[in-house]
């Protein structure tokens, strides 16, 4: 057994660290650390910086503009980025559509869309879920009917993250209504700027509006925007969900949250001493740190197993459950550390531009909102219940 990173991996880590030090804008890192809301420009700016370095699509093969890294390298990169306060990369084009096009798209589609993803010409969103099709995604109803050289699409998508920014949506539609659930679905690319597409924001409980409903009424989709074969969309959709799961545990984000928690607990006072010395709070912090270390090691074990190629299977469900629960616990502790200052909620203070002095500790402005917002972690991307179903079927054979 050798639990050390190889010298090459350590050198790679130093290289990433140095790059982040020089190129991650401090104002952006400060926003991320403070849990403030990011603008579209923030995201685009960071993507452009990484693209220039050739590190944006780091999970694509080299021939398509990827970095050609090993799973461990990707892990190191994610880890360092999160610790440095780098924002999460918007995954829709990069981690979801990109790999699908690379594997199943035709030459014209690859040539057209992949460079545009890298350059940030398109902002993609994911049109999978519908009001009646959540965990049971295969029951989706949005229909696409062939008419000459295009489809006519009708239906409603929901929970479309950042759909308000998007000009393109990759979408699952039903092309064969007679076929059984999974077999009549196709994967199409829809231009959001054309008539018949209406995006309505959904406000979340913390006051944010990052998700949307998308109404599709007689939307024309040229046949050239069909990815792969008609009625085979479920295969591509599944591939998309399982392809890139190295980052699913969110180890880096949790490590960064743990650091933040420790800093806060060293400052906030309880009974005349730092909260970090309160026996109960200290116990909770210790427990979550141990859980996190165990999960980080589990993550590395999974990655080492796939280092030689292939993708993690049902193990990623394990990482998703643990990773989200730990991250939610960390956010919960940060909220709790605020004491009564978890109550105030000033909408403007969610943004970096807020110039007033903070109410309470400066972290209090976003602590409770972040806790509530991130309840989503255990719901989206296949809820934790669905992940448990996968584990019991695929790993346990029950």
């Amino acid at each position, binding site marked *: 057994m050798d639990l050390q990173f190889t010298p090459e991996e350590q050198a790679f880590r130093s290289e990433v660290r140095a790059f982040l030090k020089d190129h991650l804008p401090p104002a952006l890192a400060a926003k991320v650390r403070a849990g403030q809301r990011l603008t579209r420009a923030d995201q685009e700016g960071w993507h452009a910086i990484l693209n220039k370095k050739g590190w944006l699509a780091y999970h694509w093969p080299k021939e398509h503009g990827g970095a050609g890294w090993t799973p461990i390298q990707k892990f190191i990169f994610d880890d360092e980025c999160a610790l440095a306060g780098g924002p999460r990369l918007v995954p829709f084009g990069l981690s979801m559509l990109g790999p699908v096009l690379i594997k199943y798209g035709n030459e014209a589609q690859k040539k057209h869309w992949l460079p545009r993803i890298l350059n940030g010409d398109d902002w993609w969103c994911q049109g999978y879920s519908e009001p009646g099709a959540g965990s049971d995604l295969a029951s989706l109803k949005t229909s696409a009917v062939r008419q000459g050289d295009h489809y006519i699409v009708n239906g409603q998508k929901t929970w479309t993250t950042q759909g308000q920014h998007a000009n393109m949506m990759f979408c699952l539609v039903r092309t064969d209504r007679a076929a059984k659930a999974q077999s009549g679905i196709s994967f199409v690319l829809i231009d959001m700027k054309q008539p018949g597409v209406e995006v309505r924001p959904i406000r979340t409980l913390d006051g944010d509006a990052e998700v949307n409903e998308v109404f599709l009424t007689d939307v024309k989709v040229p046949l050239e925007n069909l990815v792969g074969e008609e009625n085979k969309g479920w295969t591509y959709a599944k591939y998309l969900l399982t392809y890139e799961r190295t980052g699913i545990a969110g180890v880096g984000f949790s490590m960064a949250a743990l650091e933040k928690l420790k800093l806060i607990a060293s400052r906030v006072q309880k009974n005349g001493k730092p909260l970090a010395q309160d026996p109960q709070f200290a116990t909770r912090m210790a427990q979550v740190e141990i859980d996190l270390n165990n999960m980080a090691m589990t993550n590395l074990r999974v990655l080492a197993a796939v280092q030689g190629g292939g993708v993690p299977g049902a193990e990623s469900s394990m990482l998703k459950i643990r990773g989200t629960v730990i991250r939610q616990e960390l956010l919960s502790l940060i909220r709790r550390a605020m*004491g009564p200052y978890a*109550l105030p909620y*000033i909408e403007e203070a969610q943004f970096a531009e807020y110039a007033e002095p903070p109410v309470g500790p400066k972290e209090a402005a976003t602590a409770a909102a972040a806790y509530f917002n991130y*309840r989503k972690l255990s719901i989206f991307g296949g809820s934790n*219940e669905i992940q448990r179903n996968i584990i019991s079927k695929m790993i346990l054979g029950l």
Partner: protein
Amino acid sequence: MNFELDADRRMLADALGRYLSEQYSAEYRNQTAYGSTGHSAETYAKLAEIGAIGALFPEAVGGFGGEGVDIGVVFETLGHHLVAEPLLGALLVGRAITEAGSAAQRERLEGIVAGETLCALAHDEPDNHYELNRVATTASKSGDGWVLNGAKAVVLFGDQAQLLLVSARTAGAVGDEAGISLFLVPGDAAGITARGYGRIDGGHAAELVLTDVRVGADALLGMEGAGHALLERIVGFGLLALSAESLGAMERAKGDTLEYLRTRKQFGVPIGSFQALQHRMADMLLEVEQARSAVINAAAAIDDDDRVAREKALSAAKYSVGKIGTLIAEEAIQMHGGIGVTWELPLAHYAKRLVMIDHQLGDMDHHLARWMALGA
């Protein structure tokens, strides 16, 4: 033994519940609770008229209740309807006056019971973490009155309260129990600046800064320097009220979730047919029943002369609802799936309130430690 409410209390609960069901819709609640003042003057007046405030006080001071059960019934009903009105302030300040007020001070109770005087307890400070003894605000003698200086944190409706109950140090060092005194201060007294804001769970609060705030000798409530015991006593009423409110909110969150499990279909069946959710729903029920028992314990103990027994029951209740309320909030959201994190769903606001109750008057860690420290 009999756990049924008696006829008078049943009537009050029914009247209150009926009014809130009819007039206090989720939409109206959110409009007012997240609106510019965080509450509705109209609703507050109506609650007073129905008797919800009077029920919190004994007959001797113009109320018609004041026992633990009364407080429990009122706040459970408020919790059930997610009421964001300033009744907690009325309870805390009104009970302080009831317990320790002079005849002249007791005259203020009429306006409180009538819902005309908005009240707030101004105790927490930027550097305390739920501790009752950590008072840095000072009150020094000046002529036959007092001058107050300091800062108060997250004072519920502190930007609108007409009557503030302010804890201040008249002797001793920050952290001492002895030397704390309580003062009744008009909300608009010269020298008070309030920075008001909305709360994440609805309603308002404020940061107060007191700069040379002058009050008369008659502002002192109870004995000089002996405010800690009085503070503990009235916070005890608050613990009971918040615990009962939490219980009411949990019941509702539980009910809504159960209903959702029965109606939401995925994979062609109601999601309630999945055992993974059935067992968790069963646990929710079981936990809520434990919370109910904790609240009953606390309501029975509120007037117990044995301080240790009383305070342990109160801390036990607040610890229990802190823990259970958070669990119910998180489970209810999770079992609703995506819809559970939306503003549109009433349950989401219940969840926020349930979690935020743990941030008022001491969280579960605070009350567990206190329970242990109180000894046998």
